[in-house]
């Protein structure tokens, strides 16, 4: 992972499993979209527009406290595998990577702050996407980071702003505050008790929406959901963030109740599912990413319910990130065909669980939960 050393904390602080409700909420992300006056937006920008945007941003960042010591990575200068490692760490977006369009556009870049959990995507759909990604449920903290950096950059760069419509963005669904706050949640209790449909439908009714692991258009895998605000205009940033926070806390409460229902009404089945998932992860010789995510979901539930004592949420977060294809290839130092990828994945999981996730077969909880006849 030598190549990653220039990245502050290797871009992984968001999986440290700190912050509120870290067993249910993996991470919180807040971003605002900003554009600089005088240039066409991302999809319509010409090469010299994009280069000018990057240059102006680079000059401003050098005068900005939070960014001065950061690392600015121009995507076209990175090799493809490394770009995918950054994507798998959720520091880039597919759009910025230019997948399907022959690689990243000129001027596409990401700046990672050396001081705060902040980064700026340059020349994505909008000129700048200022974002903060933190562990657990910490919406107002993430918003404060973004707000402060936005203030600083706004004094350096003339942002596109309209007296009625607010901050102007390429897509009208982002206009106004330009703010998207999202919370990455693990909701196996609601899925297993079949309550999830109602909860997700409820989100739609209160102006929120949900997505899968990698954001827009991605599938829901392993019972992980990203819940975010749907609208960006007509409410203050604080109201948008508070509303999401309130609803997410309610969803956490529903999820906790669903878990209690599982333990009360289907304890034996639930325990069996969790231990089977653990057994497969601990000993399997080949795992696809999708299978791994589903098994991790069971094990994560077990760790959260203290049915798998000693297993830390951090270990599970780490497994989730380091078993993605580009991370496995990075560790192997070469391209891996899918079948080999699956073998490397299983081997990585076994070694991590052996060193920091070994659970005694009977479990410490054996006394608390007597065997049934």
């Amino acid at each position: 992972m030598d190549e990653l050393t220039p990245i502050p904390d290797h871009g992984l602080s968001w999986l440290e499993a700190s912050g509120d409700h870290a067993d249910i909420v993996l991470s919180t992300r807040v971003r605002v979209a900003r554009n600089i006056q005088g240039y066409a937006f991302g999809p319509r920008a010409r090469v010299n527009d994009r280069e000018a945007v990057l240059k102006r941003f680079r000059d401003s960042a050098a005068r900005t406290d939070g960014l001065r010591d950061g690392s600015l990575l121009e995507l076209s200068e990175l090799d493809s595998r490394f770009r995918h490692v950054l994507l798998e760490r959720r520091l880039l977006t597919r759009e910025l990577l230019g997948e399907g369009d022959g690689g990243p556009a000129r001027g596409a870049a990401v700046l990672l702050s050396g001081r705060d959990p902040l980064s700026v995507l340059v020349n994505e759909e909008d000129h700048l996407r200022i974002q903060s990604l933190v562990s657990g449920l910490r919406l107002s903290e993430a918003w404060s980071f973004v707000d402060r950096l936005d203030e600083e950059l706004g004094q350096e760069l003339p942002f596109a702003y309209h007296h009625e419509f607010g901050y102007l963005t390429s897509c009208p669904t982002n206009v106004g505050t330009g703010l998207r706050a999202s919370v990455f949640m693990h909701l196996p209790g609601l899925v297993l008790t079949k309550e999830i449909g109602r909860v997700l439908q409820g989100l739609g009714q209160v102006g929120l929406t949900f997505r899968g692991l990698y954001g827009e258009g991605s599938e829901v895998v392993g019972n992980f959901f990203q819940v975010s605000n749907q609208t960006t205009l007509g409410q203050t940033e604080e109201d948008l963030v508070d509303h999401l926070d309130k609803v997410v806390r309610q969803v956490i409460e529903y999820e906790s109740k669903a878990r209690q229902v599982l333990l009360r009404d289907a304890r034996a089945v639930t325990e069996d599912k969790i231990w089977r998932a653990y057994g497969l992860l601990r000993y399997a010789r080949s795992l696809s990413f999708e299978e791994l995510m589903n098994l991790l979901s069971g094990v994560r539930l077990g760790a959260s319910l203290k049915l798998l004592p000693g297993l830390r949420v951090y270990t599970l977060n780490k497994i989730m990130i380091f078993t993605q294809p580009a991370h496995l290839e990075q560790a192997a130092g070469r391209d891996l065909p899918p079948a080999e990828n699956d073998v490397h994945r299983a081997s990585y999981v076994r070694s991590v669980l052996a060193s920091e996730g070994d659970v005694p077969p009977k479990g410490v909880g054996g006394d608390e939960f007597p065997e049934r006849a």
Partner: protein
Amino acid sequence: MVCDNCGSGDAVVHLTQIVNNEMSTYHLCEKCAAAKGLETSPESVNIPLTDFLAQMGQTPSGEEGDPEVTCDFCGLTFADFRETGRLGCPHCYATFETQLRGLLRRIHGATQHVGKVYLPPDPSANEMEKRLEGLRRKLQRAVDAEDFERAAELRDKIRDLEPAR
């Protein structure tokens, strides 16, 4: 809550319609909602913007706009916007202002930004006043939330701006 339509099912779909500026709300059970053609599955929550825009062309609301109208700055036509769902540059918002107002109302339920007031590097007195209003609102919020560190920061910012008036 009981379904407004059949009077027996449990109402799970709450539909608010605005027709001719008249708002009405219906509470429907899953069956009656499906019969009325309303999807209740979670997959239907995300409506792609391009579909939204395509529908917009069919609404007789007088907001369709001339597809040939072109942005002076970036050359985007309204027809291009309909096709891609993306505007070309900040000037497009002025060029297509009337049509956009209708669209924004349908997407966001509002057209007036009430969040942060941007202060450009060379602000007018009016912009400065708006900005101060926004900061005072934020300060009040920080005090209410007992976030005194943030409140102190905002107070300093207000103090820095005030003499400039």
